[in-house]
């Protein structure tokens, strides 16, 4: 689940170069939405799917209505961080106002106990792992095998050049935020299923491991390059990479944009690094 969260974090940053701290609160929102749907007698897995889609839509609207206009106004990167922190706090306390501060639980959703390769799992954990694996593989295939994925990688690499090539970068950004928000929602519900109880601090508790998993896994050349830059607001939206010389006759998008395309594998690697460092079981 942490790896899934790290993937979404990386995708959002890779496409728009925005460090979205609201991410933690969106994870919490998904957990509560799933809890509400389970309380309405829906299946836990159907609640996960619906909760994920709802959070995905919320994430896309958040970017389109608030963040994208601020980026167009030329707000500095730290200003965007302040805005995302503020929005995360607003969302967090809206949850508190509606649901209250007391801890919630999905109840007995664990299912039977399974013994696999000498390790003990519950059915819910196995299904969560399977869902996570399927989603990450799907994202990887989307980014590397589809036209949409190529467009996303192009936008991540050089937004201006992608626009010049006729790619609707605004629409690509919306889709990226929809996809990453959906995965964020799935991670949130899966996290809430895994922990015994959760409250409005769920997102902030897991925000550090998600960011840490995104960092050791690496967000690719753009992140390492930007880490060496000094000052803010000096780069084009979308990260930006210097134009590479064109080879006539070769598809300039054939070489994968590693920072986005490789996100799932790097996130999983980062998750394992973080888990090992913390002495935790990777699952």
């Amino acid at each position, binding site marked *: 689940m942490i790896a899934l969260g790290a993937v979404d974090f990386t995708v959002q940053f890779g496409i728009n170069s925005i*460090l979205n*701290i609201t991410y933690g609160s969106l994870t919490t929102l998904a957990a509560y939405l799933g809890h509400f749907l389970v309380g309405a007698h829906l299946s836990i897995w159907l609640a996960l799917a619906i909760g994920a889609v709802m959070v995905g839509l919320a994430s896309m609207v958040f970017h389109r209505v*608030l963040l994208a*206009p*601020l980026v167009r*106004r030329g*707000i*500095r*990167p*730290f*200003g*965007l*961080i*302040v*805005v995302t*922190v*503020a*929005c995360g*706090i*607003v969302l*967090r*306390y*809206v949850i*508190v*106002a509606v649901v*209250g*501060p007391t801890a919630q639980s999905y109840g007995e959703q664990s299912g039977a106990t399974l013994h696999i390769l000498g390790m003990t799992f519950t059915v819910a954990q196995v299904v969560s792992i399977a869902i996570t694996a399927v989603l990450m593989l799907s994202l990887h295939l989307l980014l590397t095998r589809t036209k949409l994925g190529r467009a996303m990688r192009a936008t991540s690499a050089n937004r201006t050049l992608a626009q010049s090539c006729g790619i609707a970068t605004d629409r690509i950004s919306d889709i990226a935020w929809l996809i990453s928000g959906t995965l964020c929602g799935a991670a949130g519900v899966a996290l809430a299923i895994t922990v015994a109880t959760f409250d409005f601090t769920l997102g*902030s508790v897991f*925000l*550090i491991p998600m*960011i*840490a998993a995104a960092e050791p896994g690496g967000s690719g050349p753009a992140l390492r390059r*930007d*880490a*060496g*830059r*000094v*000052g*803010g607001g000096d780069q084009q939206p979308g990260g930006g990479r210097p134009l590479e010389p064109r080879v006539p006759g070769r598809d300039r998008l054939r070489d994968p944009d590693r920072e986005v395309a490789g996100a799932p594998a790097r996130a999983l690697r980062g998750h394992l690094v973080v888990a090992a460092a913390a002495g935790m079981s990777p699952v």
Partner: protein
Amino acid sequence: MYLGTDLLAAWSLNLEFGVAGVANLAYIVVIAAGAYTYAVLTLGPSSGNGGFQQYILGFRLPFALTVIAAALVGAAVGALIRVSGLKRLRQDYQGMVMLVVSLMAATVVGADGGLFNGQAGLSLVSNPFSGSGSAGGDWTYVGVVALACVVGYLLLRRFTGGPMGRTLRAMRDDEHAAAAIGRSVVNLRLLAQAVGGAFGGVRGALLVGLIGGWSPSSWAYPETLALLTAIIVGGMGNNVGVSIGTFVVYLLLLQGVQFLPAIASHPGLTEAFGWMILGVTTVAFVWLRPQGVFPERRPRFGRPRADPAGGSGPGLSDSIRA
């Protein structure tokens, strides 16, 4: 008294963020460092006071000495936090690193019960002037906080108005230019955070003496956002504006919601409203008026004086040279 301590914190964070451009989302950590320092230097041995609290040190030192110690610890912690971001990172990466440092610090302190009594925190920290009688002790503390505010304002004004302030603003506006004329950006940021941390430590010491206790729940990362909002609302780099912003945010917003009627079925609703309004205010000001209500006045430099010997007067680079 609360407003006084809030002003101290806002001015010192304004030094770091508004003047020096340091994206410090971990500012609450230095305040906590000062508060814990004051508490463990005044509570006495941990075996006393009922023995239900476990903490390090456990001395019983005079008030002035503990406030000075809190300032020194705050400065050291501020510099230490800066070390974690010494690599010349983009500003938003700095912010993220600081945010993670803030979260990690709260987690570590809360988890270690022997350090500062874990999640339960420290309590029974007495008002150092309570021996003057209840009302007399309170008014004495008001006087001490007011004195600290006056001294702090004058010191910070002197610091930010002089050559060092110009150097910090130069670094904020263009790091490359400041580095090109020989300014060490890393050292300047360390200095800004150390000085800001010192004032933050004093604020923490005064606050815990007022409240009587301190726990990890008192220094969650949203507290730093409240200070940043006060700076953004009032005007970055401008202590007068920041003072106005602090009054608006802390008194009108965060304290004003306390006057809303409580709803028995929703405990904590008024506090939640306060934070929601704070977040909306932050976004509104970043969107509509990022320069704040009282923007920083751009410095004006007089015409270079003619050199009687016929040479040129001071150039533009002199204005950013310490």
